């Protein structure tokens, strides 16, 4: 039963389609679908974790003629994170939302999951479109000036990014006559060199907009600041994680060359420096969190680019950084609903998330930075080690300021909201203590 991953996409789509008929119960139906997705993602992950990869053909045609879904332990983990946090986030904000919000939320989740589990590059593009269009509407949903500003910035950049991805795919297809990621990876060397690099540049530019890497992240601060708390939380764990995974997949499987590794490494380094410095200078909490997200995405990109050189520690580091960032940032965005933190749950959430982001043992963020340092030492990349220390110091500075300002008694919220926030933050502890992620990094991943 758990080897039909297509249900992870089909069920949310079906639910989103039928919600307009049952307007009154829209949020409840959507909640049911997300709960199903979460359960299915957990089942699928445990199946893949013990039995290895799952492939599923669509429409019964064997690849490379037909589309197929290819899920290894890493993409199953990403699907699990997206759907799990989507459910917890929906518990916090679902009850107040109207039925159209629930539909868009479902579509954004289905799209992000699709990006992660598909094995076909054009299919990935389609899911990028779904995710992006749903995100524009969700960001603008608050309907004030800032929300519209964020949504318009994202929409302009996102539409250009989509066309870049499409041109990149078309260039690959014009040469190799295939869209299957495994097939492209196997025959990429037979491509004309100029066209190969042009398609790489276009794919990196296009997906980079969604993955918030420098210099394509002009929309990020405005969008996170303008969006409501739940949507900002959604943006920080679903589309950005799916997009950084897509970039990693392109680097590791489709373009496994030394030059792509260097490009990605340097983009990651610059993104990290700029994100952290900009976060340090922000006054507004949400903007600070948004810039901090940019910095973290740079760190994840550095980890993935080292992982593309076959370093096991770097792969572990990227897994830990992804989990830590998803857990901490989504809970911090929920927490940013009010100026001050709500009671015990708020303080717990704030402190755990901040400690994980700074990199305190034994939280997930610490292991991420630790293994990244170990792998950088193996490669003798001293500037990466210096950068990690630098990032840690800057993060400590601005998060200490944030905690100093925000800890207080002000603000009240519903029990559901508080419980969801605390649950999200707890995953930074849980994944830091469990040996799960080490084992995933030693499983056979990617393939090709």
């Amino acid at each position, binding site marked *: 039963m758990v080897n039909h991953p297509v249900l992870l996409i089909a069920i949310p789509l079906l639910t989103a389609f039928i919600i307009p008929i049952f307007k009154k119960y829209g949020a409840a139906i959507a909640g049911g679908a997300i709960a199903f997705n979460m359960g299915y993602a957990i089942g699928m992950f445990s199946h893949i974790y013990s039995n290895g990869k799952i*492939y599923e053909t669509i429409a019964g045609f064997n690849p490379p003629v037909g589309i197929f879904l*290819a899920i290894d332990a890493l993409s199953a983990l990403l699907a699990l994170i997206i759907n799990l946090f989507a459910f917890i986030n929906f518990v916090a904000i679902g009850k107040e939302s109207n039925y159209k919000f629930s539909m868009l939320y479902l579509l954004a989740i289905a799209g992000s999951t699709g990006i992660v589990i598909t094995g076909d590059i054009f299919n990935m593009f389609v899911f990028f479109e779904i995710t992006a269009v749903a995100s524009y509407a969700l960001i603008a949903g608050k309907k004030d000036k800032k929300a519209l500003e964020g949504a318009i910035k994202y929409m302009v950049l996102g539409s250009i990014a989509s066309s870049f991805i499409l041109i990149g795919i078309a260039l690959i297809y014009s*040469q190799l006559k295939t869209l299957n990621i495994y097939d492209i990876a196997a025959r990429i060397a037979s491509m004309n060199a100029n066209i190969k690099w042009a398609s790489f540049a276009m794919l990196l530019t296009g997906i980079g907009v969604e993955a918030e890497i420098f210099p394509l992240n002009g929309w990020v601060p405005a969008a996170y600041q303008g969006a409501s708390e739940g949507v900002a939380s959604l943006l920080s764990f679903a589309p950005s994680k799916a997009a950084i995974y897509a970039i990693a997949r392109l680097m590791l499987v489709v373009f496994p060359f030394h030059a792509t590794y260097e490009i990605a490494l340097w983009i990651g380094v610059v993104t990290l420096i700029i994100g952290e410095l900009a976060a340090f200078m922000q006054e507004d909490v949400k903007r600070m969190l948004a810039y901090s997200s940019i910095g973290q995405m740079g760190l994840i990109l550095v980890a993935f680019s080292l992982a593309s050189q076959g370093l096991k520690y770097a792969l572990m580091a990227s897994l830990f950084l992804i989990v830590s960032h998803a857990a901490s940032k989504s809970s911090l965005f929920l927490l940013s609903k009010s100026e001050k933190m709500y009671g015990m749950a708020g303080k717990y959430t704030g402190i755990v998330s901040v400690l994980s982001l700074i990199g305190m043992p034994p939280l997930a963020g610490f292991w991420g930075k630790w293994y990244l340092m170990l792998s950088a030492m193996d490669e003798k990349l001293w500037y990466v080690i210096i950068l990690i220390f630098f990032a840690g110091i800057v993060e400590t500075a601005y998060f200490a300021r944030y905690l100093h300002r925000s800890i207080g008694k002000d603000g009240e919220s519903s029990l559901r909201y508080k419980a969801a926030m605390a649950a999200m933050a707890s995953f930074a502890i849980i994944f830091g203590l469990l040996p799960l992620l080490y084992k995933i990094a030693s499983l056979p991943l990617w393939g090709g």
Partner: protein
Amino acid sequence: MRKYAGIAIALLFFAFSISIFIQLIPYDSYEGSDYHYKNPINGGVANESIPTHYIKETKNETGAVNAVTAIVVEYRGFDTLGEVTVLFTAATGVSFLLYQLRKKTQGREANLITKEGSKLVLPFALLTGAYIFIHGHLTPGGGFPGGSVIASGFLLMLLAYPKFFVNEKKLSYMESISGSIFVIIGLLGLLFATAFLQNFIPVGKPGHLFSAGIIPLIYIAIGFKVGSELSSIVQRLKEVGE
């Protein structure tokens, strides 16, 4: 200064693109014997590139005489489901954002020719649209163009008559039901055959109206969905007014 920098960057980009596209190899030059795709699912080896496969096998495998339709709905049906969803997401987004702004405005009265002409054209637009998507597996066209033709008929009516409004509830129900039918056909494929969106009914004789398995069913669903979606977007934009 910024203007000149912009122009310089645009020119550089243009030169770069030209240098790439000038080297594109013509369509059918990649038929090398070095095509050995190893299927990760069953370990089999394919020795045929995808365009060749489409040209040779479409009629046998899907029963559709229109290869483009077969590719859009069968081979890459999952992408089409995604594209339908993109349109649906955009329509939902528009109505989500215009939710509070709505008020039924009274536009200017159109002139006589527009009024009478659109009344005359509407049934033919609906008929043509329906023809295009019902015959999608036989002739060029399909759900997306057919649905757009239907929506253009309603657009004419909205332009000509300030008081004309399509029943919104019915539109949204039609949109929901036709979208669900697409996904349900896919799930039935998973149930009765082996894969999502796989054909599970007899293929029939290629070239006949009742042929090509689930392709016409899906295209009818897409036609209704696109038609109702585009009509509701246009209508919503009219409601907002000045």
